[in-house]
């Protein structure tokens, strides 16, 4: 009997391309037209006897053992299919296979049981070496970016990435090695080596960083943790001869060696346009303990809460805050301090143009907070609903924040008072466009309020892009 039913299931479609790897997808109950037979099959006990993987080249089998072992625990056919589907997604998540197909068949051979099944994963490995080539224009500079990737380098889902950017002004590169723990993909180690150059016109500052870092990611309950050590040689310089003397005084070389820890809890249903859930991220950094010239303790946090209201509109509230505490009696460096303002933080103000400044160059502050209240709604009259139109939202916002330097001798009450005076705030409305699931573009009409002397404002229409937003 079993063989008859199983045979009818032979062409059972587990075709990779149709299913995709989007984790939002609900696992669909397979084969609705076989409902009549499923009643029998669901209750029928089966034993998964063999799981084969075909098409392996350089991938080590012990790595895959962890990913597919669940399939052996399946007790009936539906279970086998569900578990096989999950295993397939786990395999694809490793990023080492282009394609994975699943075949389920009755067992054959001498030791075959009457209710035994064989599951076969047919995999196609990705190429040993992939490359990419981009040109980028921006910031008064054109650059050419070459990328090389060696996925699955040693056969256990390791990845080596190299990126080289050759620009008309600056050259940057980065080399990164990624190694997950077999069976626990979320626990992984990343090693980086890089040289990057940044130009910060709001501070008339140019920064070249050469550094290396080691990063350990691991989940713990519902939280995600990142432990990181970073050693970076920083070279600061003036962007122009007209830079203020306060910035000029910061020029030169310094070495930062910092240990940092980030913990985050994210229950949102989407990173860009969440309609429910909350995010809390707390980051702390201790520099100077492991060597180097810079020594400080830096704490900052980010909180976002979302709530769905009537007619698909969402109310979102966020709060950011941070404090930099210089250690060892030396003043903080301009490159370590916080900056605030711009089209994705306190809207209506110029990019990082709030707070202490000298001759028009913003110097950053040692403490800041910023809060935002947003009401997101779909586009009026909902054009392109269910398709293109869902990439857009209109929003009404109220932002507030402050950035200043604290006198650490004064005690917490004086600090709160300092942070509570001279609050900059703004309100307005605009359109938000989602770019993939990582970035967004905003076009807003802003009305800045509470402007202090020295702040640069952007009264009216402001355009901005960002991956982190208030």
């Amino acid at each position: 009997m079993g063989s008859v039913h199983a045979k009818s299931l032979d062409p059972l479609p587990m075709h990779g391309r149709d299913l995709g790897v989007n984790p939002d997808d609900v696992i669909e109950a397979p084969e609705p037209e076989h409902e009549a037979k499923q009643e029998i099959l669901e209750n029928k006990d089966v034993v998964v006897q063999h799981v084969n993987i075909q098409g392996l080249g350089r991938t080590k089998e012990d790595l895959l053992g962890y990913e597919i072992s669940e399939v052996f625990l399946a007790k009936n056919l539906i279970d086998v299919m569900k578990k096989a589907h999950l295993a397939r997604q786990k395999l694809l998540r490793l990023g080492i296979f282009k394609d994975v197909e699943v075949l389920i068949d009755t067992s054959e051979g001498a030791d075959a049981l009457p209710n035994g099944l064989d599951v076969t994963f047919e995999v196609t490995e990705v190429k040993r070496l992939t490359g990419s080539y981009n040109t980028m224009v921006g910031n008064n500079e054109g650059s050419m970016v070459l990328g090389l990737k060696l996925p699955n380098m040693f056969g256990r889902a390791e990845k080596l990435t190299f990126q080289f950017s050759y620009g008309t002004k600056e050259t940057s590169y980065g080399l990164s090695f990624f190694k997950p723990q077999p069976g626990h993909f979320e626990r992984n180690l990343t090693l980086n080596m890089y040289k990057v150059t940044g130009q910060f016109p709001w501070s008339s500052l140019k920064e070249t960083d050469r550094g290396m870092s080691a990063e350990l990611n691991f989940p713990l309950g519902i939280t995600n943790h990142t432990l990181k050590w970073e050693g970076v040689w920083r070279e600061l310089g003036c962007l122009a001869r007209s830079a203020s003397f306060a910035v000029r005084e910061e020029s030169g070389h310094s070495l930062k060696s910092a240990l940092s820890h980030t913990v985050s809890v994210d229950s949102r249903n989407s990173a860009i346009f969440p309609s429910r859930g909350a995010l809390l991220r707390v980051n702390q950094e201790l520099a100077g303990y492991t060597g180097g010239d810079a020594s400080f303790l830096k704490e900052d946090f980010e909180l976002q809460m979302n709530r769905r209201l009537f007619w698909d509109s969402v109310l979102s509230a966020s709060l950011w805050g941070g404090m930099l505490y210089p250690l060892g009696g030396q003043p903080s460096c301009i490159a370590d301090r916080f900056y605030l303002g711009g089209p994705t933080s306190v809207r209506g103000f110029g990019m990082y143009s709030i707070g202490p400044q000298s001759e028009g160059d913003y110097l950053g502050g040692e403490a800041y907070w910023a809060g935002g209240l947003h009401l997101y709604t779909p586009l009026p009259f909902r054009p392109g609903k269910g398709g293109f139109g869902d990439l857009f939202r209109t929003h009404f916002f109220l932002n507030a924040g402050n950035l200043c330097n604290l006198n650490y001798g004064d005690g917490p009450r004086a600090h709160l008072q300092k942070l509570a005076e001279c609050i900059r705030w703004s309100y307005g409305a605009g359109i938000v466009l989602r770019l993939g699931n990582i970035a967004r573009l905003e076009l807003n009409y802003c009305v800045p309020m509470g402007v202090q002397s020295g702040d640069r404002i952007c009264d009216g229409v402001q355009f901005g892009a960002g991956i982190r937003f208030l």
Partner: protein
Amino acid sequence: MSLAAEAFVSQMAAAEPWPENATLYQPLKEDQILLSDCASSLAVQTYLRMCGLPVQVACRANAEYMSPSGKVPFVHVGNQVVSELGPIVQFTKAKGHSLSDGLDDVQRAEMKAYMELVNNMLLTAELYIQWCDDATASEISRPRYSSPYSWPLNHILAYQKQWEVRRKMNAIGWGGKTLEQVCRIRSAFATSSAQFFFQPTELDALVFGHLFTILTTRLTSTELAERIKSYSNLLSFCRRIEQSYFEDKILSVSLSLFIPSLIPSL
């Protein structure tokens, strides 16, 4: 600096008088500054004293990187930042302070030529001794140059600087020279220029800065100082300027690299 910017700067400079809080920036006196930077800094200080312009000396570990031209010393006057003796002379001239006004065109051209000679010969020779003589580089220059930085940045920066200077030396054909040849070049220069100093000009400031620093700085080889000491006119020149403009105390503070025994011989 472009011509337009230079014109703009001098125009701006002319508008304001020399402020009281003008500051000269140089590397750390005790642990960091090297012979060539010390000489250049002393030359600028001497020049400003000759002009009667007050200036405070500030020592910063990152003075070299703060300077717009990457060379020390530089002065911060009002809103302006000007580095090296040549531009500083131009800058003070725009403010109405000049030492070379009394010279005619020929003398002025000669003076400029000699200043170039000092920069090309004395300064280059100082750089050669600091960075191309292995004993001096490893015992004095590299440890002092990198003293403000922590490991491993100190080694990186010191070798980077040494490599840069050596490349420059090779480019101008000094790479193959020996220490002795360099010393001979310097003393040859010293004799030829010794007759020029009748009235104080920027040239005197420049030559004094270099000679005095060489005479009072401890290096691995004293050959150079000995050679200069054999010219009595140079010694009396140094003593005269020191007495007229520094009245003993300032220099002994500003030059920590003293060999005290040398002072009486000056």
